C-alpha cells in the first residue's frame, strides 16, 4: 500500500471510498481519485502493453497525455486512466492484451525488435499479395485500440454555439489571470481548462502556490468568467472559430462547443518532456510532474526508492516531495553534469539505474526532469510557425496573428508575479481588441443594438516580453531509448530512417509514425526533432518542427455528431394515420402512409368505390404577378400565355440539357394568381430553379413565388363515387361534369372550411378531385370525408396503392422512370413540346434530342408469365445474349388486371408494340416480356378519369 497520510493540497475525499474493478479484481480508491492514482495506491505498477513490442508499461506522465494509460472501461475503449475519475462499480481492464496483461504472448515481437525497423510493415507485407488477408488479420490484433461493442446504446451528445468576446485556453495561473483581467475590462470571457479544476501546476505546488491558486480561482468567480473544466480547446479555425470538447456536462456524455471568439488567448502552460535513454519506457520511470501529482494531489507515493534526474526546479521539487513522502531519494543533477545511461530491470518495475559515471543505483522509481515542450498547437492552427530557442531549449511563438494572444509558459518564463502580470495585460489587451471586433460586427448587423461612439481603434500590443530562462539541452542520453511511447519508435529507428534519406521532419514523422500516436506529439515532438538534428548534424532550429493540427485532444465521433436530430415532416393528418394502422415510409423527409395493411385492397376499393389519400407533400407554390405566364412559358416546354382562369394545365420542365427535371400541374386562380404543383421530391429544386431564373435572368419580371406546400393539406378523392362524396361536403361549387370538367380548378367551402381549392385531375386514372385545405383544418376535412362516405365504402389508400394505380394507368414518375439522362422525347411526350415558342429552358437541346433516334424510350411492358413481377432496375437484354438494351423502371402486380405490369426504358429498336424482350431476374432467371402499345395498362382511352 502506497497511500500516504493526508496531504495539505490533496483533492481526494478520504471520507468516501469508491470500489471498482481492475481486470476483474476489486480495488478501492477515494472520491476524486483518477483510475491511475487509485491503481497506483493499490500497488499496481503495470497498466498496459506497448503497441508494437508488447512491453509492460506503467504510468509515466500521470496526466491526460500519458501514452501508457489507455484502458477499457466497460464498453468504452481508450479511456485515459490518468485523467478519468473513478466511479463506483466501474469495470476497468487493460486493453488489447492476450491472453493477459501479465503474460502477453505477443511480446515475442520484443526480441525481434532489431528487425522491426521503420517501414518494416510497408516493406514486408507487400508480397506475396495473396497473403495480404492473412497479414491483415494478424496485424489487426496488434492494433492498440480497445474493444468496441457494437451493441453499445447510443448515448446523448450535445452541442452548443456561443459567441464569447474572449476564449482563454488553459486554466493555470496565467490563463486565470488573463480571464480575470479580460472580464474586469468588460469582456464576456470563457475560460477552458483541460483538468478537472482550475489552478494548473499551482495545484501540486507548495503552500504558497496553492494559496495563489485559491486567490485566482476566487477572482475568476467574482469576475463573472464562465468556466469549463475537464474541457479542451481542440481546434482553432478561420476567423477564431474555436472548437471545445466538454467532457463533464451534466446530461451529455460529451458536448462539442463551437465558439466564435473575438479573441483567443492561448495559455496552456508547458508539457514536460521525457528523456531518451535505454529502458526509458519501463514501469517505474516517471516524469517529475507525474510524481508531484501522485504525491500532492492524490496522496500516493509511486515508489519507495527513487532516483531523481533533474535539470530544473520542477525536478528539485519532485525530489523534495518524495523526501517528504519518506522515500529514499538520490538526486542526479544534470546542471552539475550528471547523467543517466539506462534503466535496469524486467517485468513489473525497474530495479536500478546505471549512471554515466558508472554507478549503479538501486531503485524502484526513476524520475526525470529534463525540459519542456511548448504546446503550440493552437498557434499552428492560427498560422503561426513557432521558432526554437537554443537557450530555453523549447519552441516559442513567432508572430501570432492579432486576434490570437499568448500568455504563460508559452510566452516565456519568470516569477509568478511576472507571469501573472503579463497575463493580466494580455487579458486587458484581449478585451480591448474584442471591443473593436464587436463594434465592427454590431455596426454591420442591422438587427443588432445600435452602436454608440466611434469605432475603437485596434489596440497595439505594448506588453513587456517575459524573460526566457536557460535550460540544459537534454534530449537523448548516450544510449538509445524510445522517442514515441505510443508508437514504439526509438531513437535508433529514427537515426536509421534518417540514414535512409528521410531528412525532413515531416517525412520522418510519417515514415516512422513518431508523433502520430494517441499523444499526438505532446511528449515526443521536440525529441523527434532533436534526434533528427543529431542525425543530420544540424540544429533543432534548422530542422524545424512538425505542424500540429486539430484536434488538440481527441473528441469522440458522438461528440462531433452531436445530438442525432434528423428533421422529419408530417402532414396535419398524421395523428389519424398513426391511430389507424398506417404503415409508414420515409419519402425524403416526409413521413407518409405507405399503406394501411392491404395496398391491393386499397386499389380495388378505389377502382370500385372511392378512396382518399393524403397527398400533402405534393409541392405547391403560390405564384402572383402579371409576368407569371412568362415565367411558366420559360420553365415548361408547353404554352402558358392563354391558360384561362379556372383551368389547370399539365407541364413538364426540362433542364438546359433537355433532361426532364420535374412535372406537375398549374392552375390559374385569378388574373395574376396561379397555383403551381411539383413532384414531392422536386419541390425544393423547382423553387430554387424558378427563383434562379427570376433573380439572375429576368429580374424585371413581376412575379412573387411563395412556397405553400405545408399551408394546404392536400387530399386526393378518387374513384367512381368521388363526385358523390365530395358533393356531400362542398358548398358553393357546382360539381356537375359539365360545370366542373377534367383539368379545371374551383375554390369553395369543404366541410365548413372556406378557401379550399380543388381541381379535377387524376394520377390514379380514376375520376378524382384533389382538394387543398388550409392546413389548420386538414384533419377535420379528412375525417369529414371518411364519415360522409361511409355508405360509399370510402377507404384511405397509401403511397403504395397510388403507385400501383398510376402504373396501371401508365403515368411515369420523374426520378423513377426517368434518370439524369432522360430527355423529353424518350417519355413519348414530345407532343407537348411547343417549338414555336420564342424560347424556353432546354429548347436548343430538345431540338437535337428530337432528331436523336438512338436514345432509350419509355414503354409499357407486360411479362409473358403474368405471375412474375420483374425487379425494378432489372436489366433488359437482347434475346439470347447478355447485351443490355434497357431496364425495368417500375413494376408491380396489378390487382385490377390480375397480372404483373411494368414500365421500362428500352432502345428504340426494341420499343415497338409487340416486341419481345428478355428481362434478367436477380435470381439469375431470364423471363420474357412484351412491349405494349401504350404506357397505360388500364383504361388507355382515359374514359374513367373524365367521368
Amino acid at each position, binding site marked *: 500500500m502506497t497511500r500516504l497520510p493526508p496531504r495539505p493540497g490533496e483533492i481526494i475525499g478520504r471520507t468516501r471510498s469508491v470500489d471498482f474493478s481492475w481486470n476483474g479484481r476489486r480495488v478501492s480508491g477515494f472520491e476524486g481519485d483518477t483510475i491511475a492514482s487509485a491503481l497506483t495506491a493499490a500497488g499496481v505498477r503495470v497498466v498496459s502493453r506497448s503497441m508494437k513490442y508488447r512491453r509492460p508499461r506503467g504510468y509515466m506522465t500521470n496526466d491526460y497525455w500519458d501514452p501508457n494509460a489507455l484502458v477499457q472501461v466497460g464498453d468504452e475503449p481508450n479511456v485515459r486512466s490518468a485523467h478519468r475519475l473513478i466511479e463506483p462499480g466501474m469495470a476497468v481492464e487493460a486493453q488489447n492484451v492476450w491472453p493477459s496483461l501479465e503474460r502477453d504472448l505477443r511480446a515475442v515481437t520484443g526480441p525481434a525488435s532489431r528487425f522491426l525497423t521503420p517501414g518494416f510493415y510497408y516493406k514486408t507485407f507487400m508480397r506475396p499479395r495473396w497473403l495480404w488477408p492473412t497479414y491483415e488479420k494478424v496485424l489487426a490484433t496488434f492494433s492498440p485500440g480497445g474493444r468496441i461493442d457494437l451493441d453499445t446504446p447510443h448515448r*446523448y451528445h*450535445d*452541442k*452548443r*454555439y*456561443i*459567441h464569447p468576446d474572449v476564449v482563454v485556453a488553459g486554466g493555470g495561473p496565467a490563463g486565470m489571470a488573463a480571464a480575470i483581467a479580460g472580464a474586469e475590462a468588460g469582456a*464576456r470571457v470563457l475560460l477552458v481548462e483541460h483538468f478537472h479544476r482550475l489552478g494548473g501546476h499551482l495545484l501540486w505546488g507548495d503552500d504558497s502556490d496553492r494559496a495563489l491558486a485559491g486567490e485566482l480561482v476566487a477572482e475568476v468567480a467574482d469576475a463573472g468568467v464562465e468556466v469549463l473544466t475537464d474541457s479542451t480547446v481542440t481546434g482553432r479555425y478561420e476567423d477564431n472559430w474555436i472548437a471545445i470538447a466538454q467532457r463533464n456536462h*451534466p*446530461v451529455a456524455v460529451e458536448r462539442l462547443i463551437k465558439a*466564435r471568439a473575438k479573441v483567443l488567448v492561448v495559455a496552456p502552460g508547458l508539457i514536460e518532456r521525457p528523456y531518451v535513454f535505454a529502458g526509458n519506457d519501463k514501469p517505474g520511470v516517471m516524469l517529475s510532474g507525474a510524481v508531484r501529482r501522485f504525491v500532492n494531489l492524490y496522496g500516493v507515493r509511486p515508489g519507495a526508492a527513487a532516483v531523481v534526474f533533474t535539470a530544473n526546479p520542477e525536478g528539485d521539487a519532485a525530489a523534495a516531495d518524495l523526501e517528504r513522502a519518506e522515500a529514499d531519494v538520490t538526486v542526479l543533477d544534470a546542471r552539475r553534469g550528471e547523467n543517466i545511461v539506462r534503466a535496469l530491470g524486467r517485468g513489473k518495475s525497474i530495479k536500478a539505474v546505471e549512471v554515466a559515471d558508472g554507478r549503479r543505483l538501486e531503485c524502484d522509481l526513476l524520475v526525470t526532469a529534463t525540459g519542456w515542450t511548448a504546446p503550440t498547437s493552437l498557434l499552428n492552427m492560427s498560422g503561426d510557425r513557432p521558432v526554437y530557442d537554443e537557450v530555453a531549449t523549447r519552441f516559442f511563438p513567432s508572430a501570432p496573428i492579432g486576434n490570437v494572444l499568448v500568455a504563460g509558459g508559452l510566452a516565456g518564463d519568470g516569477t509568478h508575479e511576472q507571469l501573472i502580470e503579463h497575463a493580466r495585460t494580455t487579458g486587458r489587451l484581449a478585451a480591448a481588441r474584442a471591443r473593436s471586433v*464587436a463594434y465592427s*460586427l454590431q455596426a454591420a*448587423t*442591422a*438587427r*443588432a*443594438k445600435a452602436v454608440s461612439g466611434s469605432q475603437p481603434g485596434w489596440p497595439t500590443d505594448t506588453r513587456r516580453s517575459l524573460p526566457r530562462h536557460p535550460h540544459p539541452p537534454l534530449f537523448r542520453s548516450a544510449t538509445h531509448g524510445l522517442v514515441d511511447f505510443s508508437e514504439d519508435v526509438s531513437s535508433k529507428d529514427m537515426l536509421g530512417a534518417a540514414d535512409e534519406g528521410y531528412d525532413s521532419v515531416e517525412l520522418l514523422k510519417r515514415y516512422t509514425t513518431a508523433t502520430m500516436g494517441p499523444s499526438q506529439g505532446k511528449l515526443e515532438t521536440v525529441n523527434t526533432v532533436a534526434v533528427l538534428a543529431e542525425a543530420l548534424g544540424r540544429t533543432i532550429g534548422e530542422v524545424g518542427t512538425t505542424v500540429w493540427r486539430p484536434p488538440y485532444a481527441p473528441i469522440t465521433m458522438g461528440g462531433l455528431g452531436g*445530438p442525432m*436530430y*434528423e*428533421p*422529419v*415532416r*408530417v402532414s*396535419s393528418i*398524421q*395523428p389519424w394515420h398513426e391511430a389507424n394502422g398506417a404503415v409508414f415510409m420515409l419519402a425524403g423527409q*416526409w413521413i407518409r402512409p405507405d399503406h394501411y395493411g392491404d395496398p391491393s385492397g386499397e386499389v380495388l376499393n378505389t377502382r370500385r368505390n372511392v378512396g382518399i389519400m393524403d397527398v*400533402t*407533400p405534393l409541392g405547391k407554390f*403560390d405564384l*402572383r*404577378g*402579371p409576368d407569371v405566364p412568362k415565367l411558366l412559358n420559360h420553365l415548361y416546354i408547353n404554352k402558358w400565355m392563354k391558360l384561362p382562369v379556372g383551368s389547370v394545365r399539365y407541364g413538364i420542365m426540362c433542364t438546359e440539357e433537355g433532361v426532364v427535371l420535374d412535372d406537375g400541374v398549374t392552375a390559374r386562380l385569378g388574373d395574376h394568381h396561379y397555383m403551381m404543383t411539383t413532384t414531392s421530391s422536386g419541390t425544393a429544386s423547382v423553387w430554387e430553379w424558378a427563383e434562379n431564373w427570376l433573380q439572375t435572368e429576368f429580374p424585371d419580371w*413581376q412575379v*412573387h413565388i*411563395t*412556397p*405553400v*406546400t*405545408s*399551408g*394546404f393539406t392536400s387530399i386526393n378523392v378518387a374513384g367512381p363515387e368521388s363526385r358523390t362524396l365530395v358533393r356531400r*361536403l362542398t*358548398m358553393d361549387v357546382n360539381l356537375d361534369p359539365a360545370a366542373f370538367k377534367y383539368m379545371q380548378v374551383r375554390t369553395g*367551402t369543404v*366541410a*365548413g*372550411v*372556406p*378557401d379550399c381549392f380543388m381541381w379535377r385531375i387524376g394520377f390514379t386514372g380514376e375520376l378524382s378531385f384533389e382538394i387543398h385545405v*388550409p*392546413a*389548420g*383544418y*386538414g*384533419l*377535420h376535412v379528412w375525417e*369529414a370525408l371518411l364519415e360522409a362516405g361511409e355508405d360509399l365504402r370510402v377507404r384511405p389508400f397509401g403511397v403504395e396503392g397510388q403507385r400501383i394505380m398510376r402504373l396501371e394507368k401508365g403515368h411515369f414518375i420523374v426520378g423513377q422512370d426517368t434518370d439524369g439522362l432522360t430527355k423529353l422525347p424518350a417519355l413519348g411526350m414530345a407532343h407537348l413540346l411547343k417549338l414555336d415558342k420564342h424560347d424556353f429552358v432546354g429548347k436548343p437541346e430538345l431540338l437535337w434530342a428530337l432528331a436523336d433516334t438512338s436514345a432509350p424510350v419509355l414503354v409499357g411492358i407486360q411479362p409473358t408469365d403474368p405471375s412474375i413481377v420483374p425487379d425494378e432496375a432489372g436489366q433488359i437484354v437482347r434475346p439470347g445474349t447478355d447485351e443490355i438494351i434497357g431496364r425495368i423502371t417500375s413494376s408491380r402486380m396489378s390487382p385490377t388486371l390480375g397480372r404483373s405490369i411494368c414500365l421500362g426504358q428500352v432502345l428504340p429498336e426494341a420499343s415497338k408494340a409487340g416486341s419481345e424482350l428478355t428481362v434478367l431476374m436477380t435470381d439469375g432467371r431470364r423471363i420474357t416480356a412484351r412491349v405494349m402499345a401504350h404506357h397505360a395498362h388500364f383504361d388507355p382511352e382515359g374514359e374513367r378519369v373524365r367521368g
Partner: protein
Amino acid sequence: MADIPTFESTVPAPYVSYAGVPMESGRPDSPLTLRDVSSVTKSIVRAGPETKACHRLSTPFGAARTEDGVLIIGQRPDEWVLTGHGSAIRALTESLDRSGHISIIDGTHNSAIFRLTGAGAASVLEKLCSLDWRDLMTPDGAAVSGSVAHVTCDIVRNDQDITPSYLISCDRSYGQYLFAVILDAGHEFGISPLDMLA
C-alpha cells in the same frame, strides 16, 4: 354543413421530447416555457422598395416592431410577415396601398410558430442554432433566419415584459419535429410545454 372547425395545433398533446421523454403540460408562470402559437393569423406581404406599402410598413429587414396589435416582421428583403389577431391584420393589410408589384398572402396555415419564453431561452437556442443570441446582437425586436436543429426557421426576439421570449417559426410540416427538439434541448433547463392558445 359543419361550422368552421377549430384550428388544429401542429403539436398534438401529450407532449414528448425528441429523446422520447414524456413531458407534462406546464403552467404559464413556469420559468421556461414553450407554446405552440401557430393559430395566430399571419400575412405575408411582398413589396418592392419603391412601393408605398414598403414605406407604410417601415420595418427594415432584420427587425420587428408592433403596431396596433400587429407584429410587423422584416423577415427578408422586400418581405414582411404580419402576425396578430385576424381583425388587426386585416385592418393593416387593407390600409396598404396596392400600387406597384405587391402580394399579400395568408400565411396562417403555412408555418408553425412556437413561443419560447424564459430567462434560459437563449441557452436553449444556443444548443440548436449557431447565431449569436446575446442582447447586443439580437435585442428585443431582432428578426433573424437560420437553421434550428437542421430546419430553416425565422426567429423573432419578442420579449414578454422584461422576460426574454422568442417566436420561432418554421414550415408547418416540421412543427412537430421542431417542438420535440426544443423540448429536448430545454430539458436540462427545466422547460415546460404549454397547450396551444385557441
